[in-house]
């Protein structure tokens, strides 16, 4: 027993208590509720239904569609946020060294509240006469597009808004990683006759591989549980076609009073995020050992 154990515990206790109360207990409760039916009335006892809510969840076409939607949403975000973030960071770090102050500009959307960003993009994608994008396109003779009314277009629009909001974060990670690349290596490569493109492909990118992996993991885990942008931009519509599991969870639990089913969806999101994080960390670890 360390002589400072008491002190360590006393310092850790507030944060630990807060974490247990606000995160751990609700998670455990949510898992517990997933095995019961409850209409949200205090006088009605919980009714044990075993795996009934999970069966209902996996056989619900709406849930399966929400899985497809979130998979597409995560894919688009991983690809474009990473490409944009790292692409621009590489440009600023290599070709456009004089424009480093642009980092702030690209990072600005990250600090905006998600609801504000979502509303902003909702107005951009509105149909005529008020939609910014359609008004702009009409200047070039392009007919109005009902961006948020077609399920596929709507998911792409939501993803575009999310990419715009989030790529600056990955740009900062990328930029920090690029600055750690040994200048000696780069200079040596330059002396050996490598051009800029070769230096990026052969030296910088392999050197920041771990940062790229971290970006991907953050992107996947963050976007799997995405709620606000979908909820504000489409509320899961039109006709329930743009739901992701988290918006569906909210609707089932708080709109339809299916607290058990909502909890089952929450448990699924939790398990999926845990799994993805575990696999990604494992992958990252194995790469680090190469």
């Amino acid at each position, binding site marked *: 027993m360390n002589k400072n154990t008491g002190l360590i515990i006393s310092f850790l206790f507030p944060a630990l208590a807060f974490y247990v109360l606000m995160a751990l207990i609700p998670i455990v409760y949510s898992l517990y509720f997933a095995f019961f039916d409850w209409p*949200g009335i205090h006088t009605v006892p919980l009714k044990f239904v075993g795996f009934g809510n999970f069966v209902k969840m996996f056989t619900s076409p709406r849930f399966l569609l929400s899985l497809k939607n979130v998979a597409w949403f995560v894919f688009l975000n991983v690809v474009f946020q990473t490409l944009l973030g790292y692409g621009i960071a590489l440009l600023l770090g290599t070709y456009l060294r004089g424009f480093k102050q642009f980092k702030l500009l690209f990072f600005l959307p990250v600090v905006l509240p998600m609801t504000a960003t979502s509303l902003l993009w909702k107005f951009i994608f*509105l149909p005529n006469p008020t939609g910014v994008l359609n008004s702009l396109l009409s200047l070039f003779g392009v007919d109005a597009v009902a961006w948020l009314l077609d399920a596929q277009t709507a998911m792409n629009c939501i993803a575009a808004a999310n990419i715009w909001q989030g790529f600056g974060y990955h740009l900062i990670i990328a930029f920090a990683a690029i600055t750690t690349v040994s200048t000696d290596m780069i200079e040596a490569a330059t002396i050996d006759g490598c051009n800029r493109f070769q230096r990026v492909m052969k030296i910088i990118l392999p050197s920041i591989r771990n940062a790229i992996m971290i970006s991907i993991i953050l992107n996947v885990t963050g976007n799997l549980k995405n709620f606000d942008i979908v909820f504000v931009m489409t509320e899961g*519509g*039109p006709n329930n076609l743009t739901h992701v599991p988290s918006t569906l969870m909210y609707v089932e639990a708080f709109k339809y009073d299916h607290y058990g089913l909502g909890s089952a969806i929450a448990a699924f999101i939790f398990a999926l995020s845990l799994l993805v994080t575990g696999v990604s960390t494992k992958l990252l670890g194995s790469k680090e050992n190469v």
Partner: protein
Amino acid sequence: MKRIGALLLVFSLLSAFVFANGDGESTQTITLRMLTRTAGADPAVPLWEDAIAEFQALHPEVIIQDDSVNQEAAYSNIIKTGFATGNLPNFFYDGGTVGMVKYAKEGVIQDISPAFDDAEWYNGFAEGTFDNWKFDSFGAPGYYAFPHAMSPEAIVYNKKLFAQAGIEKTPETWNELLVAIDQLNAAGIVPWEMGGAALWRTGHLHNYIMYKWCGVQKAIDLGTRQAKWTDSDVVETFQFIKDLKARGAFRENFEGLDYDMEKSLFLAGESAMVLNGVWFAGEVSALENSEDFGTFHFPYFEEKPEFKGHMVCYPEGYYVKAGMDEEELALTIEFLKLWTSKKIQARKVKELKMLSPRVDLGLTSEDLNEVLVGYSAVFSDSTMLGSDIASYDPLSEVGDQARNSVIGMLLGQSAEEAAASVQAVIDNN
């Protein structure tokens, strides 16, 4: 010296506290918590404040704690948390009817029928008003809400734009409506403003078409499962909406417009008509050119004259929590009777230009403006009033799916698919 001074101060404060209660006996206060959607800048707030002040003058021992919130999501969170934890306000507003049956069945809300013993108060309401909250047929005998409002819906139109299109008489029948739409389109005017992104907008249109085509009883039968959404007459109600779109009734991509845009465009004279409830009357009345607007009843189908008088009217009520002691319950009911009294309701109409569920207010035409008169005609010309189709269904997701299905149909599905998707929700439960 300082200590003695401090002790004396504490002693004198305690003495003042004890002797302030006369002979030293404490007076027990009762706190009544109320939760309405009337808060903030809502023009009805002063009226509530007056009612509270009047009640507290009669009952000095009562404190009325007003927890009202205007914002729908915040209100919903409070009330759902109340039901889940049992910490409900003494009374609360809700726009739903049959959706509240489950709470009545579980004994969480109070049967208010003993209040009907006060004949003077009770007889002032239109006949059948309380039947909106009568849940006997759903297995919860009794009446469960005090009426807050009976909000009829009608078509508000822009007289100038109608005249510009050469429409001399407002349409009475569905076919006349279609002709008017053609005339407006020919004149380059958007006939009907519709904010389809707010699902309830097309949902309300569906309500009216349903009642004019199938009658109000059909919605009740759907709720009690004596009818199906896939019945041919119900499918036809979906088709009528699709036909309206095909006819060019609405603006291009109206499915993406929200309610605020719908109102703005209409009030700015960008379109000729809207279907909206009496809650919209205030915004029309506030316009400088309010005389340019009028109302007419939702047209009926020539093939179904029997449903001509079936109108949409949304009952909104105040529910009382169950399980209070006798005194608290009596005070809660007394306050709600005061709020729904002739005196307060007359002020509501005269000062706020809102309709009241009471019919004994002795109003003159000067108390109402033209738009309000048009809305109140819904009552006088109706043979049966119907609320939201969803409000007759005990499953909340049915109403939601019905509205989603309407928008899904407008974006490409067939009327049959739309109807089937609603029925599927019922079948899967």
